[in-house]
């Protein structure tokens, strides 16, 4: 059992969510517990009715980057939500919604994809992060 990994996931674009999903899955495969805290636009991307939608890319992608991402999708590379689903399947991965961001977006648990385990506040996040590493994406 490795050190726990705590990730504050803020960005809601497909490239950043994709990079985060790869980190989560890799840590889970190595046996590290992972705690993901969904804030702001990342939480918005986990709405049940739009998790499969196109969430765009970070500005640095540019047109060339957008083409590269489209090419990767065509090869059948797994989506970030599918990667997270598999990460939860093999390891100790918890995905929590930030309660402030829930208020901001005006949503409740029934609006979110089942990938999201629960709602929590920031103190719970820091408590889970206490003995491990923290990432902000």
């Amino acid at each position, binding site marked *: 059992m490795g050190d726990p990994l705590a990730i504050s996931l803020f960005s809601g674009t497909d490239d950043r969510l994709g990079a985060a999903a*790869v980190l989560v899955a890799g840590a*889970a495969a*190595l046996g590290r517990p992972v705690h993901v805290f969904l804030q702001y636009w990342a939480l918005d991307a986990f709405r049940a009715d739009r998790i499969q939608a196109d969430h765009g890319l970070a500005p640095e992608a540019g047109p060339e980057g957008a083409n590269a991402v489209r090419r990767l999708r065509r090869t059948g590379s797994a989506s970030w939500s599918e990667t997270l689903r598999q990460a939860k399947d093999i390891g100790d991965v918890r995905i929590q919604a930030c309660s402030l961001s829930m208020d901001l977006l005006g949503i409740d648990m029934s609006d979110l994809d089942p990938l999201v385990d629960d709602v929590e506040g920031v103190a719970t996040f820091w408590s889970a992060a206490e003995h491990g590493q923290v990432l902000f994406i």
Partner: protein
Amino acid sequence: MTVETLRRVDARGLSCPMPIIRTARAIADMQSGELLEVLATDPGSTKDFVAWSRTTGHELVEESQEDGIYRFLLRRK
């Protein structure tokens, strides 16, 4: 007497982190000492399987490469 069964994960054509995810899932269902063969084409997998083996404690018994296909033989701890 025990019969050694060889399980296989075919991760050819899959990009990172799928080869490692499929492997972690397969090995979870195996008994201690059983062997797992993994085939992959992701060029990162050579280093990935060494790192995965070191961290998880599952032994990397053999690794080879032929025609762009990497083969790993792992033993569940």
